[in-house]
């Protein structure tokens, strides 16, 4: 059974996957796997990008988003024509010759990865380049062009350790058993720079303690040689108190919400 394992810590946001998908599927007819994709507007693999934080504590998080090839794919039973099927290797295909354009699959898919082709009156999506896999390729175009090998594709058994070691799926609560696993999804951060306003120097080694206001759980980091502290991997929308201490000087922040990433800016420690 095939899986995608996508390591987001090495996704550089180059969009090569999105482009190569178009190169493969626009103007090329791979019936019975897929009919041509329209030139624009469809993204069988789409890079999602999000700018996190504020100047100067900013990162960009990228994520290739594609058909999850779910084991419990809701698009399959939703199709009135039985045009959608799951292959033995786990890949979910919309048969372009059976599809009659009812669009029920589009409504059924919670991931928004099925597109409608008005000209051909069919629903379309990622095929994992099954037409290539069936002709000797070991991986789809998106994985072949990925310059950092962030997109990995193969037998699930090849990736057992990676998947067990903290891989996540999107919207696990839906229980659809997606076959696309992500490593290192970026979580929220709280960051800042601590400085001494009299000396006009960064404060190195200040102890920063972040306390979860609900659970009381604490984590501690100290500021680095730029006076920076970073708390990474925080859950979304939690509440925290932050205490910064150095040589008897203390600064506290209350009710920091991680609804967004938080940059507390340059913080004078007096």
């Amino acid at each position, binding site marked *: 059974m095939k899986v995608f394992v996508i390591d987001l810590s090495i996704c550089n*946001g180059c969009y*090569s996957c999105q482009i190569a998908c178009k190169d493969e599927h626009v103007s*090329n007819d791979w019936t019975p796997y897929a009919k041509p994709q329209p030139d624009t507007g469809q993204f069988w693999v789409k*890079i999602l990008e999000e700018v996190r934080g504020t100047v100067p504590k900013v990162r960009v998080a990228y994520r290739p988003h594609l058909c999850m090839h779910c084991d419990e794919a809701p698009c399959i039973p939703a199709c009135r024509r039985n045009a959608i099927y799951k292959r033995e290797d786990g890949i979910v295909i919309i048969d372009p010759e059976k599809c009659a354009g009812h669009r029920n699959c589009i409504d059924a898919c919670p991931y928004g990865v099925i597109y409608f082709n008005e000209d051909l009156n069919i629903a379309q999506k990622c095929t994992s380049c099954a037409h290539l896999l069936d*002709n*000797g390729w070991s991986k789809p175009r998106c994985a072949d*062009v990925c310059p950092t090998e962030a997109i990995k594709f193969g037998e699930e058994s090849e990736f057992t350790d990676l998947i067990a070691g903290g891989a996540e799926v999107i919207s696990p609560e839906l229980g659809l058993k997606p076959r696309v696993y992500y490593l290192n999804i970026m979580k929220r951060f709280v960051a800042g*720079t601590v400085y001494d306003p009299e000396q006009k120097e960064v404060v190195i080694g200040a102890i920063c303690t972040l306390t979860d206001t609900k659970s009381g759980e604490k984590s501690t980091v100290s500021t680095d040689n730029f006076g920076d502290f970073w708390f990474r991997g925080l859950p979304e929308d939690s509440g925290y108190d932050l205490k910064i201490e150095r040589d008897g000087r203390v600064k506290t922040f209350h009710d920091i919400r991680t609804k967004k990433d938080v940059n507390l800016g340059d913080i004078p420690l007096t």
Partner: protein
Amino acid sequence: MSEEKDRLKARGEDVTADGERAAETEKTVLKALGLSGGIYGGAPCAVDVKNGRIIRIRPLHYDWKYNKKQFNPWKFERNGKTLEPLMKSLPSPFTLAYKKRVYSPNRIRYPLKRVDWDPKGERHPENRGKSKFKRISWEEAAEIIANEVKRIHEKYGPLAILVQGDGHGECKFVHAPHGCSSLLLDKMGGFTQQVRNPDSWEGWYWGAKHVWGPGLIGMMNPAENIVKDMTENCDMVLLWGGDPETTPWGFRGQFPSRLCYFWSEIGIKQVYICPDLNYGAAVHADKWIPILPNTDAALQLAIIYMWIKEGTYDTEYVETHTVGFDRVKAYVMGTEDGIPKTPEWASPKCGVPEWTIKALAREFASKTTSIVHYFAGGMARGPYSHEPARLEVILLGMQGLGKPGVHQSQIAYEGMPRNIIGGKGQSHMGMFQNLAKSPAAERLLKPHKVTPVAWGKQLIPKTLIHKAILNPPVTFWGTGAIETTTEDQFVKYTYPIPKEKGGTEIHMIWTDTPCRTTCWNCGNEIIESTRNSKIECVVAQHPWLENDCLFADIILPSNTTMEVDDIIPCIRQGCHFQSVLLMRQAIKPIGESKSDYEVVCEVAKKLDKYDEVTDGKTVEELIKAVFDGMGFNNYVSWEEFNEKDYYVFPVAKDWEQDPAGLIKFYEDPETNPLPTPSGKLEFYSERLAQNFPEDKERPPIPKWIEKGDTHDENLSSERAKKYPLLVMSNHPRWRVHAQCDDISWTREIPTCKVKGPDGYMYEPIWINPKDAERRGINNRDIVKVYNERGAVLGGAMVWERIMPGVISMDHGARVDSIIPGELDRGGAINTIAPSGIISKHCGGQATSGFLVEVEKVSMSQIEEWMRQYPEAFQKEYDPASGLRFNAWVEGGSQ
């Protein structure tokens, strides 16, 4: 033909080394799809073709027809981790999308003539860029051009024709753009050459050369083997201005990305110093220090101040390896001018907090640090960019430049493991020396010399074309050619040259580099000068109807690499391996297009110069001549090369022993001097002092230049009251300079274009939420960027990837004038860049770090322009790919 088919069939049976094969592929050809231009290749790709159409472009798998072991792959190791080459090339997204470029609706399919340009009557130069074109035959086009050449020669002399043959484009050898017209005109008494300045690395060229000698185009040299050395020894690298996730894309591909991730994995800290959170900083930065554009010199001086004050520089090295430190010290500490260059002094100038300046100075001094660029982005492309460039060398010099882990690095552009043909100490041009001695050398190399070498009889720097046309004579110091000596910068040139030497003003332009308006300084003045009546004829040859083509009188359709047979050595570094490709024709030429070489041959026929231009050689013979002339036959037979279409140069067995960078100079500067007059790092340049004693803009030691005769682009300027924002302009993310702005698949990417409320796809303008709010600008609004030199429109991206006080706009967007020379809808920011050169004696361009204001453009304003300039808005436009061929051609849709 049946033989050809049989051969392809036979090749179709080849199975790749890892068992992969394209489904139903009729043939696979190889192409280097780097877009830097010239004969250095890059981004080797496999192109699958079926039924005469390109079906896909994919990375070349080096082990397709060879065994990996033959390559002797290199390896970098540190902290128990290993980086090895992948068995594939890493092309950029626009390389992968190049099919769209080849089949662009904007391709020029047949020769064109401007409707109101009559070589026998009225020429209407004032309508260049305004009036449309109509189809003519090849016969007519070649005849007109031949007659114009003869007429101009008789009336003014041969040097009245300007060859604009330099620039960026596809990598080909026999058929390449950039200079084939020189082959013809050289046989007819010569021409005036537009000399291309070092547009991406001005500061190194005009500044750093005076500190460490010529370097490699001004950057640190030798740089052999420094990638391994940095990987093993650096604690920290400073990415100062350049973007490893953008600029390398158009040249060799994406290997720098892998290298940066590996450096993170082994614990090398990556600090980005740049006004924008560029694409490298977005994913690799351990620390981003935003700095106002073109204020790097202030930060650098404050770092030097801190090192002197705290005694944290290598005093012994400075004593033995440098000259003039005392003068730098006197300036920095304020004994020279009464102003100590403290962090407190620097902070308001550069926008970096005092405490961060001090912290950076201490980190730099205490950690083994290299500075990494890919040319340097905005940092080396602003007014007076020679100053930050020289100061960078001084910074490195004060920390023992040359010792393990202390280098300036063009990330992976140089310094990768040597292959079996790369001699030690050999620069990237070295390989062509053998070819230069071969019988076909003149035909093969002459056109390619138009970009790096000033060999025309009369010269005009590319940065001064508008001044040369509008206000001759012009004088300049140094030709500005990429490959020339440092000493050339002390030579005064004048255009036109004396009459008795054939000197004349130019009256005809033959361009195959139609991007002067959008990629160089003050494009609006170029538009104005091109429409001057002195210019009687403008010929453009190009595959796409874009940019300067629109200002031509005759346009000849050239074709792309997909449509020709050629050969290309991918020998510059930056790929996993270096290789040579036999680039077979993938598809038939589009429309009536011909290769850039064949285009010139058509005109040559009309002038009875065909045999002289071709030197009696066929394309096939020329390809073989490259193969033999460059000595590839020593490594692979012509037969095997023809069978496999490529060859990968194995890594040299002893590459790890190559001394890294300037280590020899570091170890013994007396025995291994630098190529400077003193043999040392010249913090103070006696030569500059002697040649330009009065120059306050590039004094003998580098300084902070607040303003000068040439530029007044600082926030302290009076002008800043009207134009309070600084422009950061880097090389584009989704183009290579002006190339690829019409690819529908990249234009869908949110950072490539912004769809305005009028449906037009605008060039993005990055603006900080604070600056946007003050101006009532919302995300995706149409905005106008303007100063005294004109205005361009763009689409606002209001976000945190840009510091307050700065807007960022990539250069190279496709010109789409509303008012030619005044208002551009396409977003070609360089149309309003400074007109002046870098500084008084330095003929480079200053196209980042200049003052503008930004305001929101309402739909009623757009409608007002529509009423005033209806023709500008009636051109056929497709949001997916931009302006269409039909927009400019009468009856173009037929």
